[in-house]
């Protein structure tokens, strides 16, 4: 329930475990399109603010919130309001 307290942002790699509770695909290689500015890049390259309350994934271009992940006792909640879409990686993108 506790996560490290960060001031400096991390990146989408840090959210792989949390997002993996909600998605069946490898999320760091998934493409996400920012609903605010249209930037499209893999989740790994987004900014991530990870705290004990949840993880906030922000666009590396405009800083808008793309995804919010909260580990509730009844399941992991992912808000995708800030993302126009999220696309699963192709099998060829997978390392394993």
């Amino acid at each position, binding site marked *: *329930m*506790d*996560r*490290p*307290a*960060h001031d*400096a*942002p*991390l*990146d*989408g*790699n*840090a959210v*792989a*475990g949390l*997002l*993996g*509770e*909600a*998605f*069946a*695909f*490898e*999320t*760091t*290689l998934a493409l996400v399109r920012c609903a605010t500015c249209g930037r499209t890049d*893999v*989740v*790994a*390259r987004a900014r991530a603010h*990870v705290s004990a309350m949840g993880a906030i994934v922000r666009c590396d271009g405009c800083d808008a919130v793309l995804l919010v992940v909260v580990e509730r006792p009844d399941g992991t909640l992912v808000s995708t309001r800030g993302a126009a879409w999220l696309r699963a*990686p192709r099998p060829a*993108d*997978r*390392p*394993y």
Partner: protein
Amino acid sequence: MTAGATGGWHVATVVGARPLTRSARELTLSVPGLEASSPGQHLDVRLTAPDGYQATRAYSLAATGQAERADLVVDRVPDGEVSPYLVDVARPGDLMEVRGPLGGYFVWRPGDPGPVLLVAGGSGVVPLLAMLRARRASSSRAPFRLVCSVRGPADAIGREEIDEPTPGVEVHWVFSRESPPGWPTRPRRVADDDLAAPGFTAADGPDVFVCGPTGFVEAAAALLTGLGHAPDRVRTERFGGA
């Protein structure tokens, strides 16, 4: 919790602990049900106190490829909550939980022909050490250059192993606070000259992996793109601590 890309939490038992520096040690865990990992991946580690209090942190895997086993290197963050436990208290037989292996972006595939430029700040060397170990263990001939920035010689994780001569692998140390006796250069930060080496220039199109604290990663990534490396060839992973 079983669905999802992570496969949920697995019970892990400490089976080995080896000090690496005054603040870092390698912990070996036995984890029934854990898939084999790829070089560069990490695990989430969850500790549970007797009163139910839990804390979760992410740690890079220092060795990969073997299922049901995890080799973590943990560097103690002085005011941290989890890392002091893992470095100073945990001993063989202790139980914890892990989730993973995690991540697909910051991963080197041993089948890739290279070249590969690895840039580490402090304990950011851990996932890059996993890549180096995987290359040495495989038939890969991919040219590797590993640039390791550390505060001083006493902070260098795995220096002896990293320095082991291997054809096709070059290692370059940068000491930021204190150089070893007789070292040819004064303590300094990573600069263009450290990153630009024959065979690993932007024109050679290496895959670049940078790992370290956020400030280090952003400074190194800026130098690399300044040297002409395409931003999408520079893969970065920032870590926090505690």
